[in-house]
């Protein structure tokens, strides 16, 4: 019995390592979020949130951008969630380990690594020009959907695969067909992981600039129809910051975006936690 470290010592060390990485992550979080909020919060007030920008955003508010962000993200998720979860269910439950599965998986992984700028150009060439949709919420939303898709698909696939077999068998033995089993037992049990995928995919869509630069237009007006151009928050922020229009308002815009995202993730996670507690009896 010779080992370099006793289990107790390695437990202590590793516990330290885990706490260390947890704390390091917290520091990073505090640094980044703090950086955005400290610079951005002073700008935020009722008027900033609910009025139109004046003078390209040097003054006034960001109301049209908030609407645009919600609108574009909504379009992206409406497309990406069904495609992602549907694809994941197919991969995990229907397809076995065939070549088509490997191809789909590989395709989605490649898709996940395509630079956002290429999505932007593709969106421009395909949605804007080829399909003739023009610069609009729909073109931007569809482009973002493509970006969010692989994250949702692969994450959902993993969580569906890790649902214990005994649940599936229990359902099948009651005469449930495959789809009922998936819908009633497998998906509910996989929900926490699927939600993580959706949140990550949504976050990707909500923060993306390059992909919408060439697709959504950059109109300062509030978009009404999905064929109207729009200017989501990150694009506005990008223009404000990189063209030197107004750094304070750029930070304010960023802070609004960060708060928006944090509220969504915190609420969603709380719901998921409650759900797990209820289902798993833990």
């Amino acid at each position: 019995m010779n080992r370099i470290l006793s289990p107790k010592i390695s437990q202590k060390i590793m516990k330290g390592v885990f706490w260390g990485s947890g704390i390091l992550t917290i520091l990073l979080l505090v640094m980044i979020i703090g950086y955005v909020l400290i610079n951005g919060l002073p700008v935020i007030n009722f008027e900033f949130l609910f009025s139109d920008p004046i003078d390209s955003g040097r003054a006034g508010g960001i109301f049209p951008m908030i609407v645009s962000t919600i609108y574009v993200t909504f379009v992206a998720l409406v497309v990406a969630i069904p495609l992602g979860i549907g694809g994941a269910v197919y991969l995990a439950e229907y397809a076995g380990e065939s070549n088509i599965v490997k191809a789909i998986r590989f395709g989605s992984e490649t898709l996940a690594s395509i630079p956002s700028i290429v999505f932007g150009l593709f969106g421009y060439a395909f949605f804007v020009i080829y399909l003739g949709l023009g610069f609009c919420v729909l073109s931007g939303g569809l482009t973002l959907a493509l970006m969010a898709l692989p994250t949702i698909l692969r994450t959902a696939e993993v969580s569906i695969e890790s649902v214990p077999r005994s649940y599936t068998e229990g359902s099948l033995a009651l005469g449930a067909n495959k789809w009922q089993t998936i819908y009633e037992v497998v998906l509910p049990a996989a929900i926490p992981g699927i939600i993580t995928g959706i949140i990550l995919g949504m976050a990707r869509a909500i923060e993306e600039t390059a992909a919408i630069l060439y697709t959504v237009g950059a109109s300062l007006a509030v978009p009404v129809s999905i064929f109207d151009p729009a200017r989501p928050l990150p694009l506005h922020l990008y223009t404000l910051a990189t063209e030197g229009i107004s750094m304070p308002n750029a930070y304010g815009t960023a802070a609004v975006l960060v708060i928006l995202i944090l509220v969504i993730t915190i609420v969603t996670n709380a719901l998921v936690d409650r759900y797990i507690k209820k289902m798993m009896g833990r």
Partner: protein
Amino acid sequence: APGSGSKVTVVGSTSVQPVAEKLATAYMKEHPNVKITVQGGGTAVGIKSAQDGTANIGTASKALSTNDSQGLTQYTLGQDGVVAIVSPNNNLTGLTKDQLKGIFSGNITNWNQVGGPDAKINVIVREEGSGTRDAFQDIVLGKLSNGTKVSFVSSAIVQSSTQAVQQAVSQDPNAIGFCSFADLGNDTKALSINGISASASTIADGTYTIQRPFLFLVKGDAKGEVKNFIDWVMGPEGQAILTSQKIIKSTNSTNSTK
């Protein structure tokens, strides 16, 4: 959609975008039945959109090559100066054009060669294709005797926007960069060139030579509401806005970068 009487789309250069938006807002206030949407994308997108008709008006922040301008009518909104900038902590106030050329082409690498402290010069430039960069390269670096352009020093840091260049320069006392006069902020210091500082008057009369045009591009001839808008922009109201944005009407027609 393009062509419909009361809707106008303007697409292209991100440098022109802010001022175009301002123009559009003011115009729509006077003409409530007209809707003008202004979008970014870049000068190349502006040229393409104008050529293929995706947009009524394309915008560009540099003089077009004859190839690019095929079939397009160009309207010059005005001139934008390009200024060399350093950190406020840098004691230098001006350089000669030759010194500037030496620094950006890589022949001068230490501040003590131009009267500063003994420190390496960190050169920061814009990306290939940027209107600002083109203008600066053409005018400051010039061409070799065989006609090819003189290149920037290869170790130069590349930043992709006016603001990023200013940020980078403002924090590094040994850095030097350049940016649009219209967008010059308070964190950096513009250098005089050959003793002349950039200002509305020196740009307008051409004594400050580093400048480039902002363009509206229309396929064929402007018609209907597009024409109305451009006429308005070129008229007194439009020009007043342009001037307020430091886009300067040239009083001397020989200084174009063309």
